């Protein structure tokens, strides 16, 4: 019997197509999370008010921020879940190796981030519509964004989700390599938040957030996020390359 010659890229594509179908649960959990976030956003995501003499005002903000925050965390958790045994074993029922598994995962996560990013934008509009026609808010003001601004914003949204996904993937792999990390990482993170807040001003977390959040050029934001994500993926691949399957 002759041996099949296969190219890695072909198999990556096949695994990716297979994963789009077999990991479909990822998308349904996204729907749940988004509906929930939209529901929470219905009371407004922010408020401000004040008065000046006989004049007083209240501004109620509705933005996609909360939805995006939820979805970023969803991306983080989704990536962790994809690194767990149950999902890794699915790959190995068919042709694969560790690298192909990683690359098809990354492609899948990219697609999921893309879908998530677009739906975040769309669901902020659903939220608007509900606020106006269900909650009957008044004095409506909004930004009129151009198509370019919308495209830029959606791209940034996708990038932010992808950033969280890549962190999640790395964290997930750490946990797979050693269970201890599932305890160390949350404890370390909360500890870091507290220490960071107590001693520094501005805090490191804020600095990190500003590193991305204050970037007014989409191309630079793209470069920043892709570089950082790539770093996390490379680390994830390196730490898991010696890992056994189904041991």
């Amino acid at each position: 019997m002759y041996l099949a010659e296969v190219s890695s890229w072909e198999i990556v594509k096949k695994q990716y197509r297979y994963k789009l179908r077999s990991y479909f649960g990822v998308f349904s959990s996204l729907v749940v999370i988004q509906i929930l976030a939209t529901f929470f956003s219905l009371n407004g995501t922010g408020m401000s008010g004040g008065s000046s003499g006989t004049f007083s005002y209240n501004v109620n903000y509705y933005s996609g921020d909360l939805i995006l925050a939820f979805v970023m965390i969803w991306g983080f958790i989704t990536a962790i879940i994809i690194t767990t045994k149950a999902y890794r074993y699915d790959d190995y029922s068919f042709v694969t190796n560790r690298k192909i598994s990683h690359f098809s995962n990354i492609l899948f996560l990219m697609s999921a981030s893309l879908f998530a990013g677009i739906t975040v934008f769309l669901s902020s509009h659903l939220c608007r519509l509900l606020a106006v026609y269900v909650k009957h808010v008044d004095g409506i003001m909004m930004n009129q964004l151009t198509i370019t601004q919308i495209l830029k914003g959606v791209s940034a949204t996708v990038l932010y989700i992808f950033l969280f996904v890549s962190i999640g993937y790395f964290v997930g792999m750490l946990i797979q390599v050693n269970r201890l990390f599932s305890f160390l990482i949350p404890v370390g993170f909360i500890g870091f938040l507290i220490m960071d807040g107590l001693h520094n001003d501005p805090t490191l977390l804020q600095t990190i957030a500003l590193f991305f959040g204050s970037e007014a050029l989409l191309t630079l934001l793209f470069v920043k996020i892709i570089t950082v994500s790539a770093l996390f993926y490379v680390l994830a691949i390196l730490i898991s390359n010696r890992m056994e399957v189904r041991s």
Partner: protein
Amino acid sequence: MKTVECIELTKQYGKTKAINNLSFTLSENKITGLIGRNGAGKTTLLKMIAGYLRHSSGEIQVFGVNPFNSLKVSANTIFIDNGMSFSNMLTLLELLESAKRFYPNWNHDLALKLFDYFSFSPNLSHVNLSKGMKSTFNMIIGLAARCPLTIFDEPTSGMDAGTRKDFYRALLKDYIAEPRTIILSSHLIDEVEDILEEVLLIKNGEKLLHTPVEELKEFAIGIRGKTEALKEWMEKIEPIYIQEIGANISYAVIKNDRSLIELENAKAIGLEVVPVPTEDICTYLTSKTKGGIDHVFS
């Protein structure tokens, strides 16, 4: 051509050696039975061959390369066991179609016919299947994939007697239609004996025997008779198995390498020379002690 070659292969978990210094070669297009008791290291060995596990020392080559993390090995090997995991987001039929995309030799016609024959309903998910049905479904994938190296690890667990029979017949027929290297692990040899060409017998991760299956039948003989006579005759012979079966009567299994004269001598002192069923040979060879379970009670 060698499909699988292991030289002093060892797999260690901490201090325990799951596979210990195992050397053997599987040549192309043979059906080999991997026989051993539970915990003998069958699954560990097969997973190393399939490239799932890394070996600790020695050498392992499948299709001429180290199988661990090898795409070449993965593309040409299918490993069927009851730990196979499939997403529930795909129906059984969709799973077959997915498998079709991955394996160039995939025989979809065969897959669908087997699928019908075993009356699977196409809209079910893998998770809905009972253990036996899962094994049957996995078996369909294993057969239809027609991989140059096909590994079945305890494939019939959970299957009923009829399905088992069907499976082995299907395996044989498809092997005749498309010869390939097949490794079949089992703890029972009598079930698979007929369709095997070779047997690899392992115990505690070590190789006991690797022979054509016919030679296994002639590997050992049984000697039965008065305990004293038996002991006397066996003075210089290491038994594979020995047991007292009644008042003053014992039964021993020894390697079939005695000369005709020695056997005639045995008959002369009232000992009986009897053949030993293959299954028993395997059991005795792979058992933990030379006395079997009776030893515990004596």
